């Protein structure tokens, strides 16, 4: 990599900054995934499709003449109820079951969402133009769209708000208690069913925020959901459940990795490299864990 660092320092800097700003968004999505994984033990393949749906909400506000940045407020509210609806219809029937069942069920939801969005919004790649302009740094060598800075800022604000909410509020405490031990929480009077629904709703709302920001900074397309799921899954397994600084760091790391893959290998291999990285990380993790596995469970 050092040839790139020394020969093209500006490109390197550009890629790093882009990657970090992008990674903050990934971390926000991954935080939602870590939340529902930790609390309900569910891996939601439809995570990425919830993100895209949130993006379309912001895009439609843009089409009707409202500034898409307001989508950051509107999308999570709508997505919260979408999340609750998904929970009531499907997820509450698979919560206690085998993990593979929940993966397959959410895969079904993912396909359903993909196609419904394709019908409703068309198969074009769209973006909501925020009109924020760009910031030039270092003699105009590094170009940063203001929308990216805005989206990273908003993601951080939402993440901090959520962390405080989880620490201080009653529902947040109930969620954390359920994550630690669902049965004990039930005995102590926590309505776990409600907690699960709220968790899924909060996750969907986070996806909505991230989606609205993605529609401002990047592009959205009905079939682009799965890479976001895979990214957030990857970030969560690298960081571990309930490790918020870890989620933020590995999110940024993934963003930087992607930007470099984009520059070095070419844009057509960008998504492929993300999926390959997932496989490599899982394999690395398996060899690392197998050294520790000395006893039978």
């Amino acid at each position, binding site marked *: 990599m050092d040839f790139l660092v020394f020969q093209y320092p500006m490109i390197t800097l550009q890629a790093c900054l882009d990657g970090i700003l992008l990674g903050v968004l990934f971390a926000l999505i991954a935080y939602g995934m870590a939340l529902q994984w930790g609390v309900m033990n569910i891996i939601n393949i439809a995570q990425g499709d919830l993100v895209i749906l949130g993006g379309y909400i912001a895009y439609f506000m843009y089409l009707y003449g409202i500034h898409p940045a307001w989508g950051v407020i509107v999308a999570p509210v709508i997505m919260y109820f979408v999340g609750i609806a998904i929970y009531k219809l499907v997820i509450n029937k698979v919560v206690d079951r085998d*993990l593979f069942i929940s993966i397959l069920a959410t895969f079904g939801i993912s396909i*359903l969402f993909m196609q419904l969005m394709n019908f409703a919004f068309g198969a074009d790649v769209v973006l909501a133009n925020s009109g924020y302009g760009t910031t030039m740094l270092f003699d105009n060598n590094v170009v940063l769209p203001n929308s990216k800075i805005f989206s990273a800022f908003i993601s951080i604000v939402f993440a901090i708000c959520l962390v405080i909410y989880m620490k201080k509020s009653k529902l947040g405490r109930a969620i954390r208690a359920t994550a630690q031990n669902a049965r004990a929480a039930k005995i102590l009077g926590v309505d776990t069913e409600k907690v699960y629904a709220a968790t899924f709703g909060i996750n969907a709302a986070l996806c909505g925020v991230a989606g609205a920001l993605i529609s401002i900074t990047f592009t959205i397309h009905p079939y682009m959901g*799965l890479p976001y799921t895979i990214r957030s899954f990857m970030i969560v397994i690298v960081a571990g459940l309930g490790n918020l600084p870890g989620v933020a760091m590995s999110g940024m790391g993934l963003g930087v990795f992607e930007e470099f893959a984009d520059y070095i290998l070419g844009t*057509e*291999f960008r998504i*492929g490299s993300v999926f390959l990285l997932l496989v490599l990380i899982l394999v690395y993790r*398996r*060899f690392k864990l197998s050294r520790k596995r000395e006893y039978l469970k």
Partner: protein
Amino acid sequence: MNKNFILYAVILIFGLAAPFLFPAFKVQLSILCVLIVLATTWNIQGGEMGYNSFGNILFYGLGMYLCASVQVGMFFPLAEWTESGGEKTFVHTPTQFFQGMAVGLVVAALVPTIVAGLIGYSILGLRGHYFAICTLGLGVAAGEISGGIEIIGAGQGFTTPPFPNVGSLEARGEFFYFLSFFTLVLTFIAVRSIYSTRFKLILNAIRDNEDKAEAMGIETMKYKIIGWMISAFFCGLAGGIMGGLVGYIDSTDVAFDGREMGVFMVLMAILGGKGTLWGPIIGATIFHIFKEGFWTFFLGWQYVALGVLIVVIVIYFPEGIMGWLREKYPERFGEVVDEKDRKAQVELK
């Protein structure tokens, strides 16, 4: 045993006569054979071994690309073929076509098997959902990467050699039907003989409790890899045939089509009943009929139906048809039921 023999004979005769009885459905029947092969081989490691893979599509797509590339590359320069986009600058003679197809199918079966063996050691060490997501990633990565490789057509696709002009117009359909039916029979014989050996018991032991199986002295990793390689062999073969049948290979829409074929094979096996010999076959047949009906009458809504179908099957019918039958008529499956238990069950209901 005798009864089974008659059943097999009837199915075999029906299979051989089918293209002449239903000449209009030859292509559909060939696809059905391929689907049954995919579901049955998915069941080897998904149902019997308990390793739920979304990534068998990797071997299917690999086989498809390999078969077509070998078939073209044996006689013509591959790069020019893909660049011309299937225009008739190069034409296979019948001998060349069949020779190429034969060699291509052998390569299409063997290379995925080797690939499965090579990656098996690293991937099959993952447990449960990590394995499922990892294989999902493998399948999608393969699709994305093959979509960027120029020599096999990149984004614009790869046209497989057209069927040569031999005999009647029906020849193409009959050729592919008998090829896929032969593969189906081969798969069935192979799987059935596997299931009557100790190997199947080992796979079941791995599914039920891998750590205990290991503690009993079974080299679980070895058997897991072998199980996956058997799956890969038939998936590659099925892919090679399907490539010739469809006539056009696209990286994400035909070959590494995780959204369709990759889910179909899981769904068919679950619908029929995981971990049974006949389950995937019944599941694939019912699923194919349903799918074709839906694809024809509700064009455009098929993925919506597919999504709903997945959710409904997984939530309300995870045991599958064979599992349901087994619960209803346990005697037919050789299980002895105590009269007392039965009465207790009836009372419970």
